[in-house]
């Protein structure tokens, strides 16, 4: 698993883009969380792309929850981009994540944040 990059960072418009991939669970969620916080500390807006996530457990949810909480508090807009189906969407829906946080289209979400 060490060869796999769970998290990569990029810019998309004015927003910071965080791409997550592969399986996110108890084993790697804390580390991924630290990475994201390090890269998005001063972001104006954050996009988290979960479309390549093949598994998401409650530790991953915990991470996203904390992240959203922090950014909300700082007034930083955030969107979570998930596929129409798939593991990430299932878990987040089960955990009743707010609809306004979730997006299915990355470009549109970036536009929304930019506007």
């Amino acid at each position, binding site marked *: 698993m060490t060869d796999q990059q769970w998290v990569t960072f990029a810019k998309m418009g004015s927003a910071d883009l965080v791409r997550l991939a592969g399986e996110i669970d108890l*084993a790697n969620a804390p580390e991924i969380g630290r990475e994201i916080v390090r890269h998005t500390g001063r972001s104006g807006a954050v996009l988290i792309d979960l479309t390549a996530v093949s*598994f998401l457990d*409650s530790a991953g949810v915990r991470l996203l929850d904390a992240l959203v909480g922090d950014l909300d508090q700082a007034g930083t807009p955030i969107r979570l981009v998930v596929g129409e189906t798939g593991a990430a969407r299932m878990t987040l829906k*089960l955990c009743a994540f707010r609809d306004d946080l979730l997006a299915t289209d990355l470009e549109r979400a970036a536009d929304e944040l930019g506007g």
Partner: protein
Amino acid sequence: MPWEEDPGDLYEHAPCGYLTTLPDGTIVRVNETFLAWTGYERSELVGRKRFRDLLSPGDKIYHETHYAPLLSMQGDVHEVAFDVVCADRRRLPTLVNSVLGRDPAGHPRAIRTMVFDATERRGYEKELLKARRTAEASELRVRALQQVVAELSAAPSAAEVAGAVVRAPAAAFDAAFCNVWLVDPDRDQLTAVASTDPDGPARDDIPCSSSRPIAEVARRGDLHVVPTIAAAEERFPELADTMRRTGIRSAVLLPLTTGFAGETIGAEVLGVLSFGFTEERELDEPELSVVRLLGHQAGQALDRARLYDDAGRREARAMFLAETTRALEEPYRLMPRARNLVERLVPAIAEWAAVRLQIGPAGLLADAGGPAPDQVRLAERVAIVVANGKAEFTDVGADPDCAVLPLTAGGKVLGTLALRMAPGRRTAAAEAAFLSDLADRAGLALENARLYEQERAIARTLQRSLLAGDLPSDPRFAVETHYQAAAQDLEVGGDWFDAFLITQDKLAVVVGDVVGRGIDAATTMGQLRSAIRALASAEAGPARLLERLDRFVDRVESARMATVAYAEVDLTTNEMTYACAGHLPPLLTEPGGSPRYLLDARSGAIGSRAGSTARIEHRVPLSPGSRLLLYTDGLIERRTRPIDKGFEVLARTYAGRRDSPLPGLTKGLAQTLVGGDHPDDVCLLCLSLGTEERLERSIGADPVQIALLRKDLRGWLVSHDVDDDSTQAVLLACSEAVANAIEHGYRNDPFGIVDVTATISAAAIEVEVTDRGNWKGPTGEVSRGRGLRLIRQVMDQVNFDRRDGTTVTMRRTRREAR
């Protein structure tokens, strides 16, 4: 005649007093002599006073309780000593004789009393009496002292010496409020250890440097007699307060010193005896010498007791160390060993103790007793001790008696032992040598346990990883296996099972047993297992395979004498060929038939030099529905019963479960035959020609392993055409349950194992996740709560069983069946 007397004059002036009284004592006649002695006028007495009215109050009682009854009973009384109170209140010592006169009817009529002046005689008597009382008091003191000395010589401990000494002043001097204080050199203070006060000794300790009188006497080492409260007021105002409060009028403070009476140079003060008197009292010289003698006798007894205590303590410490070292060898595993250590320490040595080990991400903690010290301060001190490996026996601040010692092994700091000594015991600093010795031994024992854990974990992981490899699945057959480790925490054994497809249509099943235990056995087992997989071929057959294994062990010596039961099944014809190399015979049941042992095709163990290595094989046609059981000797061997009996029991049990479903069959057999308490590993494999499915995995308590488990589970679900939603749901639920086991069940055990079993039927998927950790109830942590909620959301039935560890059973109905 010149000697003739006038009776009247004789009566009046006789050399003794005469009184005549009525039976109730009223004086009716009295002579001049009595009046002259006492100074009363006749008119004051006659008809106005009773005889007893002239007596002192004490004599009045005697008159009423002795004189009057006696007189009335025997008619006369002789030589009773009374003090007559004269007109000027002076007391006249007299001796009195009385006769009771009766009338002819026998009724008392009058009492005639003769009174002799007994001044001289009574003076003499009083002297005698005083001498007697003095002698008695002195004898009492000597006897009390002798008693105390006898008790002291028999008192083996300082506490018992104090108990004997504290009773002495009351016995010898009628003293009150006696207290014994002992010098505690470790803490540089005086502690009250015995008291005649029913509330027990005072609870406040007195620093040796205090200005309080007890400390002063201990420092100066000489006897202080405080005869009055006023005297106390001058020198020790505080003592005066105490005296007033306790009703003491005179006080004595006596140092208890070593050395002989009279020696003051070099004598050491070991304690102080204080006592008082409820009335002001001067002690005379003989009394003072008795007091001093008491101080020396008590001091010597204390000195002796101190040596006894010291020797006793050394012996107890040595014994404790030896016993602890022995006791720590008992549990092999790390946490039980750490627990064992703190539980031995509390309360025997310490009131609180904690072992912290720098193992695992959060470290391990075992503690006992209380109160625990301030956690922040303790964490700081633990960090310092871990960093420089030096023990800290005291601390500045609120908790000076809390000690922290490093637990080291081979120069490496493994963790710390922190403790606070039990109250009333010597301080940790005073016990430094003992505690260091204890920590050294504990460090070694814990390091050994850690190594054991490590090796055990490696061996188990190795064994499990080898055993957990994919067993083939096919609609034409099913394989059910069970591995049960020995109940005692022994090293892993070399038992194994395997099943693999040699070709698309040829299945091989194996159960074997390598000699020895531990990592070596696990490694050898892995090598043999791989060798069999590599050497098996469509053409070779069992006998040829065993021959090749014989050659293999020439290169892998540790595999020599391994035993193997090996069978190949042709899935197109259902014909089986098998061979046994020194292994127990397979057990076969066919539909409608009784179980039978396959006793053909037997030869010696692999690489055996004494046994037959002429490898032979045997063919058996199997009908569909047949079940073949391979197993290792742990299943049937019992020290308490012959092996043929074991075969019998197995056959009977197996027959009884002929119609049971395959899932759970091998586990059920193992539990029935060996139960929970078995000294050896047990390994079983059951091949069923038919289709039933089951996935079984055991993973270490490490989050990284969850992903590996998911990979297997995903493959298994997909191979059973489980729909996408159900697959995602089962993967999520299973991950959460395992994460829960790791985060909670094995919170303190990084070496724990989580067992996962998944079974599938046309209707549903069922997953069981088991840990053997300590569940401590809901933690209130949001995160885990969310995990459990997710499980309940995606599975149709969820059940938690927390009897022994935690078993989560989850069931989800398949989409086709919904």
